[in-house]
C-alpha cells in the first residue's frame, strides 16, 4: 500500500472526524484523575471546597460523581479512562440540567447513547433530580485494539444516589431504576483522530451475579 496515498486518506478523514468532534468541549473538559468529592468515610466537602465540573457545567452541592481509581500510569490508558469518565460525567450533566446539557451526544453512541438518552429523559421534568454520591471504582482498561479501540470495566455503586423531588429533596427511588444499584459496567471505546476517546457500547452485569461478582 502506498504510504502517501494512505496518509492522504487519513488526513482527509481526520479533518472530517475532527470537525465532527467540535462542540464537545474538548478543551477544558474535566478529566478527573480521582475523586473530587469526599472519599468514603470522610465528611462531605464544604461548598467552598473543590467544585466538580464538566465542560461549562458545575455539579451542584449534594451530588458527587466519585472516580476512586488512580489514574493509569500509561498515558494511552489514561486517555481511555478519561473518555469513560467524560461519558459518565456528560450523562449526569444531562440529568442535572434536565436535558439542557447535551454534551453526552458527543461522548456516547450505540446502546450507550440509548441508555444515557433514556436516563436524561427520565429527569426531563424540573421537579425531579438526583442527590447523593455515585462511585465508580476498580476502573481499568481491559484491552486495547489497534491503538484505536479499547474495552474498559468499572464497578458502579449507586446505592447512595437517589431520584429526589427537586423542591423538597424527598427521595423518590433509586437514581438508575433500570439497573441494579451495584453492577459491573464494561464499555467499548473508540479513539478520535484528535486523541480523545468516546464510548459506543455498554454491557452491564449485576454485582449479585457471577460475572459482576468483583463489584460486591
Amino acid at each position, binding site marked *: 500500500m502506498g504510504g502517501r496515498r494512505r496518509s492522504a486518506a487519513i488526513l*482527509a478523514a481526520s479533518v472530517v472526524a475532527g470537525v*465532527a468532534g467540535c462542540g464537545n468541549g474538548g478543551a477544558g473538559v474535566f478529566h478527573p484523575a480521582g475523586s473530587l468529592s469526599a472519599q468514603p468515610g470522610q465528611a462531605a466537602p464544604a461548598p467552598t471546597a473543590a467544585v466538580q465540573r464538566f465542560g461549562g457545567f458545575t455539579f451542584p452541592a449534594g451530588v458527587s460523581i466519585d472516580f476512586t481509581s488512580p489514574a493509569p500510569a500509561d498515558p494511552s490508558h489514561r486517555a481511555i479512562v478519561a473518555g469513560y469518565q467524560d461519558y459518565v460525567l456528560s450523562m449526569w450533566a444531562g440529568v442535572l440540567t434536565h436535558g439542557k446539557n447535551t454534551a453526552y*451526544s*458527543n461522548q456516547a453512541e450505540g446502546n450507550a447513547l440509548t441508555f444515557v438518552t433514556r436516563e436524561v429523559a427520565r429527569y426531563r421534568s424540573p421537579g425531579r433530580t438526583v442527590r447523593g454520591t455515585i462511585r465508580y471504582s476498580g476502573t481499568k482498561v481491559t484491552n486495547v485494539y489497534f491503538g484505536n479501540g*479499547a474495552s474498559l470495566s468499572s464497578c458502579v455503586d449507586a446505592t447512595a444516589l437517589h431520584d429526589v423531588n427537586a423542591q423538597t429533596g424527598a427521595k423518590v427511588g433509586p437514581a438508575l431504576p433500570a439497573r441494579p444499584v451495584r453492577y459491573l459496567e464494561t464499555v467499548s471505546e473508540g479513539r478520535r483522530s484528535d486523541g480523545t476517546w468516546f464510548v459506543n457500547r455498554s454491557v452491564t452485569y449485576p454485582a449479585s451475579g457471577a460475572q459482576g461478582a468483583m463489584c460486591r
Partner: protein
Amino acid sequence: MRARFATILTLIAAFAASAVLAGAGGAAPALAQGSADVGTQAAQARSARAGGGGPGYLALAFSHVSVSGNAAASGLASPGTYLPAPCWLEPRFTGGDSYHAGDPQPSANGDADSYWWWFASQEPGLYGVLGRIPGLKQAVNKVFKAKQGGAGWWWVPSWASGGVNGFACATGLVQMLNFSDQYLEFEAPQGGGGDTPGHQIDGNILADIARAELVLPTFRVHTNPAPPTPSDVNLPVWVWVDYNGARSPADTASVPTPAGSLWARVTTSQPQVSISVSSPGQARVYNQCGATGSPYQGNASAIPSCGVTFLAPSKGYTITVTARWTVSWTASDSPGQHMFASPPWPVPVQTGTSTVTVQEVQSVNGPSPGA
C-alpha cells in the same frame, strides 16, 4: 482496483472536509436515518440457528462464519472468554450487494453501502456532520453503485458480539483505517493476520472461534458401592464416569470466501481421567483411569485401576474426578495439527464429585462350634 477505490474514498473524504471547512454545515441534512436508529437495528447479532445437530451462526456480527459440531454460542458471550482476535475483516457482501436504491438502508446487513454508513454512525457526532455536507451522500453512494453487480466481494469488519471486546476491536480497526483506505475493500485486504493492518480472517482466527465455542462434555461420577450405601474401611471404591455428550468433542468453523470455503477444525484427545480425595492421608488412590475410569466388574475385593481405598471411617469423603483433554486444530490454509496452549487458553478440563461414607467393618465372632 484497491488503489482506485481508496483514491475514490480519499477524494470523498477530502470533498467532505472542504465542504465542512467552507461552512456548508448549515445545509439541510441529506440523510434521512438517524444514527441511533440505524445502529440499533444493525447491531443485532445473528441468533443461533434453531434445531438440528448443533448451533450455526453464533453471536457473530456482520459475519458469515458458521460453527458446527459440539459448539455453543455462549462460549463467545462470556466476558471472560479468551479470544485473541475478537474482530477481523471478512468477505461479507458480494458485488451484487454493493448498493440498492434508497441506500443507506436502516439495516446495515443488506449491502456494503449501508454498512459503511452504519459504521460512520458509531462515532458520536460524525454521522450528523456527514449528513449535513451537501452531495456527500450521493458521492459515497456513487462509489458503491459503481461496483453493483461486480464479481468481487466487499471485505468488512466482523466481530464476536458477546460482551464489548468484539465491538471494541472492530471500532479500533475502523478508526485505525479512518473510514476509508482498507476499511471497506472490494478485494482481500493485505494478509498477515494477528494485529497487522487488514487483519483478514484466516484459519487461525476461525480456529480461535471454534475453540471458544467448543463444549467439553460434563459427566456423571459413579462409584461402587453407590451412595447412599456406605463403603467399608479397606474395601476398594470403584470409580468411573458417564459422559453427557461426545467424549472427544470437535467443532468446525467455516466461512465462504471468493476462493471457496475457508475452514478450521478443532479436535480433542480422548479425555484422561484422574481422581483425588478430600483426605489424601487416609486413602490409597488408584489413578490409572484412562478415559472412563473403572466400571465395577462384580468382584468387590479386587483392586480397581481407578478407585480409592479409604483407611479410616468417615461420614463424608469427597472424591473429585477430573477429565483433561488436549485440544488441537487444523485449517484449510494451515495443514497439520496445532495446539492451543494453556495459558492463555483456559485449561480444557471438567470436574465432578461424589461423596462417599465409609464405615468401620464390624466383624462378628460367634461362638466356635463345640465351645
